[in-house]
Structures are given as C-alpha cells and as structure tokens.
C-alpha cells in the first residue's frame, strides 16, 4: 500500500527560514475541504495557509495536479486575558471547511477561545468604465463627463481575497479542542475541556450549551472532553471522547442538554497491561466518524481503534501504532510526550486508516488485508517524486539493515496532524514546520 506512494513536498519556505524552526512555524492543524481541491493548514503563529490543487498539466498527463499556495492570512492574534492575567495563544487548534454553497469557500478556524468564520473569494475580473469614477475610484470632474457609457468587466490577474465574516467569541471558558460543522450546514459545535456549545453559523452572540461535564466542585474533576465530532449524516448525533478513554454518543433529539449520553463506548481495561499510566495512555486524543457514518476511529497514545456504532462494549479493531513505547512510558511521562495529542484519519473509502508517530514516522493500516506500514516524512528521505520506503522500528536484538532502534527515535519529531483527501489517495502530513503531501503512484495498489 503506502510504500508505493509518489512523494512530493510542499513546505512553507516562502514564509519561513528553514535553518531554524521558530515556534510560530509549527503546523498545528491540517484539513482538506470537501472536494479535496483545497487544503488548509494552521500554525502556532495564528496563520492559515491554503493550498490549491493545480489542474492536471499537459506535459505530464499521468501526474495529478500538485498543491500550490493559494492564500495565506493571519487568522488569530495573540491576546491577553486581563482577568486571568494569562496570554491567549494565537495557535490555530482546528480548521474546518464549510460545505461550499456558492463560488466562495468558507472555513472555520479556532484558537483556544475564539472561533472565526472566514470567506475565501476569488476575483479575476474588474469593472471598468464607470461614468462618475475614474480607474482609481476617484470622482471625476463632472465637467469632463460628456457622454454616458456602460461599465464593462475586464479580466485581470487572479486575486484571492480572504475576509472575516463572523467572530464567535466568549463562548468558552476552557480551551477549545474541536470544532465540527453539522451536516445540516447551518450549525456547528465547539468543544472545550468541559463543555460543548452549539452555534448557528450566522449568529455570533449566542450559543447553546449541549454538554457540560463541569462538576459543581472543580476538585471533583477527574475527566475532561478531548475531542468531539458531528455524525456525517445524522444532524442530531454527535460523539465526544474523554480523557478516560470513553466515547459518548449523544442524540440532540433526546434533550436540549445532552449530559446523558445515548451510548457509551468503552473498552474494559486489560489487567495484564495495567500500569500507572493506564489512564493517561487510554486518553482519547482524536475521534473521527467514518465517511459512511457507521464507524468511529479513535486514537489514544499507543493504539488506534475502530468502533462500530452498534457495538459499545469494545472496538471492533485495534491497531498498535508504536507498542514498543509501552516500556518507556515513565520517560515519556517525564518529558511530557505522553500527553501528545496524535490525530487520526480515514481514507476516502474507509478501508485504510492513518495516524502519526514519533521520529517523523506515520502509520497506515489496511483494514481488509490487516497489513500495516510505517513511513517516514523527512526532508532527507523524500525528494520530490521519490517513492517512500517502509521503515521499521526494531525492538529486540535482531536488527536488520535500515532498521531504527527504539532508543534512537527522535521524540521531538512527531507527526500529530494528518489529513486524507476525501476521495483520492493523497495525504497531507504535518511534521513540525513542514507540510508533506504524498500521493499514490499512478495505478497504485493502494486499494
């Protein structure tokens, strides 16, 4: 599968100096739009960069269009919370595209506190020949106007304009970890550590609280919301995951406040793997509905799991992402890596799942063949159009050539954010400040 992918890399060099990575350049989210034509990334500096797929070129008929920078804008600025005397980071936590309604594209971007709706429009024509205004828009001297003319649209260089349409502020006391647009295309929800709010896309001054797990006494707090998503087809259903490893499916038809879940998905703890870190590593860092809406994909620290909406007792599939780290949990706790929030993604047909790991590795699991592969996203190993080689992490004494030992993994190079094109085998991988886009070789065996 993945080993036959053609590789290409787009990095943000137009903005950034690669010799040293500044914190602001670290990519914090990656998201394809619904057609896959556009790809948006957000970074810790509050910027959003949108890539657009170029039309197929005549010179290389077999190659599909590459993604080039389409637009860049500053979505969020650092702020200061004067009541708490704390900085509010500008880091973009999530980006979600709205279904396209007209020629314009829209997306939601959020930092810890504030969600913004952006409209991205193209302009390639401009009107010329006004009667009362000249080319610069200044009023003409009326004495010079001797005849009436009809203004005409003339072509001009393509301009991409990004404008803020709505700012949804003051809805969250805690840090927003997820936003999700509803299938009704009118509402969306935003989840922070303790609450989930439902917003109408057109209304910024009020939201409805649909989940609130804040205990009356914060000292009793033992669990937080880690991620949340709407069902892709049923606008009344949504799921949220918790730091204790459970998933709660809620039905908004049942009550206005969905504190009582409809279904609780939870796997009993395996006593043989019990350790001090059991709870931390079971904390769900991401949850994604399959495109079909039948399954849910969750990522915890060591595994990725597929759940059937019809079976609550345990996941139907569990894949080990990097089980060799199980013996290193104490060190990973000490250096805080154990709190890394890896995301996960489905391919377009829900047959392959993908998630990130350390050392710039990412993993793919074929659900049908049960094959899995580890690939590496790095500047050194991936020249444009090169084919990715599978990587192996060796655990025991036997070490084959090109294997990398567990002890030499670089834990500062982590792939937390990945995205899969909604229909094709194109994946976007965020590795610190680099964005890698890989695609299937033509006629590949990916499926």
């Amino acid at each position, binding site marked *: 599968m993945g080993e036959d992918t053609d590789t290409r890399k787009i990095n943000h060099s137009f903005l950034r100096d690669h010799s040293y990575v500044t914190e602001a350049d670290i990519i914090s989210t990656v998201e394809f739009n619904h057609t896959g034509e556009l790809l948006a990334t957000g970074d810790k500096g509050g910027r959003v960069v949108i890539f657009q797929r170029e039309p197929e070129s005549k010179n290389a008929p077999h190659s599909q269009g590459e993604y080039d920078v389409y637009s860049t804008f500053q979505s969020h600025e650092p702020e200061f919370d004067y009541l708490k005397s704390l900085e509010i980071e500008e880091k973009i936590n999530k980006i979600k595209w709205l279904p396209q309604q007209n020629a314009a594209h829209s997306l939601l971007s959020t930092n810890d506190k504030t969600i913004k709706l952006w409209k991205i429009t193209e302009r390639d024509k401009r009107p010329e020949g006004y009667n009362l205004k000249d080319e610069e828009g200044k009023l003409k001297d009326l004495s010079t106007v001797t005849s009436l003319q009809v203004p005409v649209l003339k072509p001009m260089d393509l301009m991409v304009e990004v404008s803020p349409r709505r700012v949804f502020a003051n809805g969250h006391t805690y840090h927003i970890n997820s936003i999700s647009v509803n299938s009704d295309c009118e509402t969306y929800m935003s989840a922070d550590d303790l609450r989930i709010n439902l917003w109408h896309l057109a209304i910024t001054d009020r939201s409805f609280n649909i989940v609130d797990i804040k205990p009356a006494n914060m*000292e009793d707090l*033992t669990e937080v919301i880690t991620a949340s998503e709407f069902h892709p087809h049923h606008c009344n259903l949504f799921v949220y995951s918790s730091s204790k490893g459970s998933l709660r499916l809620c039905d908004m038809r049942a009550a206005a406040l969905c504190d009582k879940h409809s279904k609780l998905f939870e796997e009993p703890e395996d006593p043989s793997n019990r350790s001090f870190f059991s709870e931390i590593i079971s904390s769900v860092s991401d949850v994604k509905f399959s495109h079909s809406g039948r399954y849910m994909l969750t990522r915890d620290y060591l595994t990725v799991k597929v759940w059937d909406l019809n079976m609550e007792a345990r996941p139907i599939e569990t894949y080990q992402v990097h089980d060799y780290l199980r*013996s290193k949990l104490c060190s990973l*706790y000490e250096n805080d890596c154990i709190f890394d929030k890896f995301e996960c993604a489905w391919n377009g047909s829900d047959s392959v799942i993908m998630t990130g790991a350390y050392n710039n590795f990412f993993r793919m699991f074929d659900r049908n063949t049960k094959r899995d592969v580890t690939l590496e996203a790095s500047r050194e190993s991936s020249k444009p159009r090169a084919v990715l080689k599978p990587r192996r992490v060796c655990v025991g004494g036997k070490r084959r050539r090109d294997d990398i030992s567990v002890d030499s993994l670089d834990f500062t190079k982590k792939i937390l954010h990945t995205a899969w094109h909604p229909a094709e085998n194109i994946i976007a991988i965020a590795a610190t400040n680099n964005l890698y886009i890989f695609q299937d070789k033509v006629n590949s065996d990916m499926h």
Partner: protein
Amino acid sequence: MPFSRELPNPGIESRSPALQADSLPSEPPRKPVYPFGRYMLGKGGKRKFDEHEDGLEGKIVSPSDGPSKVSYTLQRQTIFNISLMKLYNHRPLTEPSLQKTVLINNMLRRIQEELKQEGSLRPAFPASAPPAAAADPLGSSSREAPPAFSQPAPAPCELGGAAALEACLTPASLLEDDDPDTFCTSSPAAPARLAPPALLPPEKDSFSSALDEIEELCPTSTSTEAAEADGPKGDSSSGGPGAPQRPEGLQEGGRPEDPKLMDSLPGNFEITASTGFLTDLTLDDILFADIDTSMYDFDPCTSASGTASKMSPVSADDLLKTLAPYSSQPVAPSQPFKMDLTELDHIMEVLVGS
C-alpha cells in the same frame, strides 16, 4: 481547604518525612528560576523534589523492572515526584492544559490511594522510601524506624495524652515553624502550625540546638502543651531533637482521625505560641536572627512574581491556611484556575505530613 481535609492520606503523609529528611542537608540553594507555584511550597519542598529528581533520573524505571516490590515502589515514588514537579512547573504565562493537569492529578490520587491502602495494612513508609534516601543520615534514621513504629502507637493523637518524652523533644521544631509568621506578619491569630520541615532554613541545625537550650528554660507546662498540639507533625522535626520520636509522629500523621486533630489544633496551639515562648526576650533575639536570613532567602524568589510578593513574609504554613482566601483575590495568576490552588493546598498537606 475542604479538599485537603477530605484526603488525609496516611500513606503519603507518613512517608513525606523521609523525603524531607533526606533533602534538607547539603542541597545548594537554587536560583529562582522556578515559577511562583513552586515557591509556594516553601523552599525546602522545592529542594526536596529537585534532589529526588536528580538522584533518580537515569535509573528511572527501566522496562526490565521486574515485579519486585522495591522497583515498584521506586517507580511509584519517581512517578509521584515527577507528577508533583509537573503540576507546579508549568509556564506561568499561559494557562496550563486542563487535560494534562487532570491526568496528573488522577495519577497522584491513584498513588495516594494505593499508599493509603498499604498504610492501613502495614506501615507504608519504609517500603516506599526511595533508595536515594539511604545515602542521607536522616533518611536512613527514619528508615530504621519501622520496627518501632510498626507497633500500634498508643493513641498519640488524643490531646493531652501525649507522652512526656515526646513533649520535651518537639518544641524546637514547633518554634521554628512558628516564628516566621509571628514575627513577619505580626498576626497573633495565626492558624495552626502545620509547617513542614521543608520550611526550615538549611542552617537549622545550629538553630535547633540553640532552641534546645532555650527549651530547658521554658516552663514545662507550656512545652508539653505545645508538644501535644504539635504531635501530628512530630515528624516534621527533621532536626536532631526530633529524630527519636519521629516514628510516632509518622504513625499519627497516618491516622484517619487526623483531620479532626488538625481542626482542633489552632486554638490550642495559639496560646502556647503567643504566651509561652514568644514573651521570652532571649528567644526573640535568636529567632529574629535566624529568621532574617531565611526570609532573605525566601523573598527574592517569591517577589519575582508579583503576586507572591504580598505573601512573602508569610510562612508556608500560613499559606496553607490562607490559601482559600487568597484564591478569591484577583491578583493570583491561577485564580480562575481554582484547581491549582486546591491542589497546591493538597500538596502542601502532603508535604507537611500533617
């Protein structure tokens, strides 16, 4: 405060003296590079953690750690220390991740629960004492203690029922814990002294010996009463005089009726503090001399972060008692994060071993 009362954790409390004991001597003063939260623990507390970190890092829990009890308790202790570090070592400018805080808290609670259960079956203290403590004289002395205190203590918690022996041994620590707020905040109505030995200045050895002498001059009745009040924190006298009765103190600390005792402490103790010792002029001088240096030590650290400056003249035991009020003040950076304060509260109780 209610939180800390709810968790009078025998296991942890009983073992904290070991931590404190082995941390006090020979730890060079640190530069105030740590965020304000650390300092609220008192500098002794801070040193303690550092030392453990330093000592244990490297040999932390290799995967080969078998099921052996020693490695398990070592790992537990390491994790416990790391957890404490994490809770108070975040960047002060941005709000810490609630998820992380909650997970770390759960970890601490779990370890506490475990220690508590072990403590109810047998003294958890010796087993869970980190090997690093062995290098230290005080640590080892407390490790030798188990045989003595594994015997059920004869109801040491009852006020007025304390042994005379204990009585004449504790005042030193009592005074030491006592003086900072008496002199610096001049609040005679200071609440119960729950100060951990962690607060004691490093030069306490000479100080406590001086106090020993003074103690002989003091009326026995007062010192007895003080000692009784001081009973549950007898362990806190990590200095010379406290050593023999430490085991008892530990046992007491671990007793479930501890919270009640704490509640009954303040008034009782108040009298001894204000009338008994502090009217003594000679003592005043000595205390002043010593306090000055310790406060000097303490001040720069706390005043480094603006909010702490108003607390700086207050000893940590005062903080322990007054945290709740502080939390309502808008100046505290972590104020909206009520969690922080209550947890701090809780941690302090753990440290104090009250």
